[in-house]
């Protein structure tokens, strides 16, 4: 009796309730409208990793989308992501590269030009530099440009000097020295997990998560629903 009740809860009641509550957007809509009435812009948080080719679609794409709607986009670089002890991690990285190339070609882009996956260690310096930038707008500009240079520009290798030059051009500052942002980057990963996600590129809008590289249209639709004056 207890076993069958537990079975019913686990197989039907709990997942069906999760589905039903996910469709209730009323409370989030009111929270977002209150925020705007108080003069605060809508905010999207985007957690991403430089070694993730999907981030090369998500960060610039979401930046364009938020800029067009005067939405505050905050980016949080990650060094750790994914599922611990995932046996498919290796093939996942290879597939992501092929799939991200196809996704990129869907738009007016030429696709990703990098043919090999990049390790998190090889581009950790970019996460440190990005995290060290104090201004959210600088972080976004640098993240977007560095990802495009890393994944979409066939001329760029992984040379620190080329990215340091990009950093100087975009922010007017020298990149942070060393790996001083380790604790802050670990906090980003912890914040991502505490808030209910595990992977890059994850966008959070009013508590709702989206894999940003493949859900840009859905995020745009949601932002339009939350705008003050938009029909309910």
């Amino acid at each position, binding site marked *: 009796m207890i076993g069958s009740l537990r079975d019913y809860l686990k*197989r039907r009641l709990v997942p069906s309730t999760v589905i039903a509550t996910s469709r209730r957007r009323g409370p989030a809509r009111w929270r977002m409208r209150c925020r705007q009435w108080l003069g605060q812009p809508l905010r999207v948080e985007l957690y991403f990793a430089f070694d993730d080719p999907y981030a090369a679609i998500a960060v610039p794409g979401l930046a364009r989308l938020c800029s067009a709607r005067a939405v505050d986009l905050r980016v949080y670089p990650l060094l750790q992501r994914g599922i611990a002890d995932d046996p498919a991690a290796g093939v996942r990285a290879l597939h992501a590269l092929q799939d991200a190339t196809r996704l990129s070609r869907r738009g007016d882009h030429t696709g990703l030009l990098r043919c090999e996956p990049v390790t998190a260690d090889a581009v950790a310096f970019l996460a440190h530099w990005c995290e060290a930038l104090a201004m959210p707008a600088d972080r976004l500009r640098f993240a977007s440009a560095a990802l495009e240079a890393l994944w979409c520009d066939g001329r760029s290798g992984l040379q620190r000097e080329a990215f340091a030059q990009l950093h100087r051009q975009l922010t007017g500052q020298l990149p942070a020295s060393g790996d001083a942002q380790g604790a802050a980057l670990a906090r980003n990963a912890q914040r991502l*997990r505490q808030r209910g996600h595990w992977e890059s590129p994850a966008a959070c809008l009013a508590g709702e*998560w989206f894999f940003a590289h493949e859900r840009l249209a859905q995020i745009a639709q949601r932002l339009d629903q939350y705008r003050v004056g938009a029909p309910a």
Partner: protein
Amino acid sequence: MSHHHGPASATVEFFFSFRSPYSYLAAARAFALPQQYDIELVWRGVRPMAMRGQPLPLAKQLYILRDAAREADALDLPFGPMYDPIGEGVWRCLCVAEYAAEHDRLAAWVITAATAIWGRGVDVRRDDAFVELCRTAGLDSAACLMAIERSDYRERVECNTARLAELGHWGVPTFAFDGELYWGQDRIVDLEHALREAGLLQGASASPRRRVSA
């Protein structure tokens, strides 16, 4: 066991799990592909990730349910209440899929069973509900109840699961065409692009052919 009307120029393998909501969302569009493109769609029913040692943390389970609900709404497909078929429910559906493929009722069975699981909350482990689904899909329910015990069907599912791993993939729904893998119900658009690029779009004058095999 092929059920086609004339040879197709190319094959597309369709890896599907009854426990995957995204597989359910892909099913109708996948089975419609051979009507539009000169291809043979090869059915590959596989065991779910959770029944082959792939970790599925709670955050991912929740995300999948919520995202699939959004996608189902966009596709105008029923989604929720659901009943997780993991275990014997999955095996029943997979074995009957093999039987249905032999009787040219594969698409009807897959869509009927998956809609019941994900859109109506039907427990496919219950014989009464299961028999009703078989009848709805145009299958002999007594034969279906015998099919779920057939070891050769279970072996075929194991072969399909091994085939997915051999191709270097882990998730479903996945389509394999011309050496490339397309993972996700929202990647059918990319598969169709590749099919058109390969010159496999059937002309307006061509009579649609139903070609699905297992």
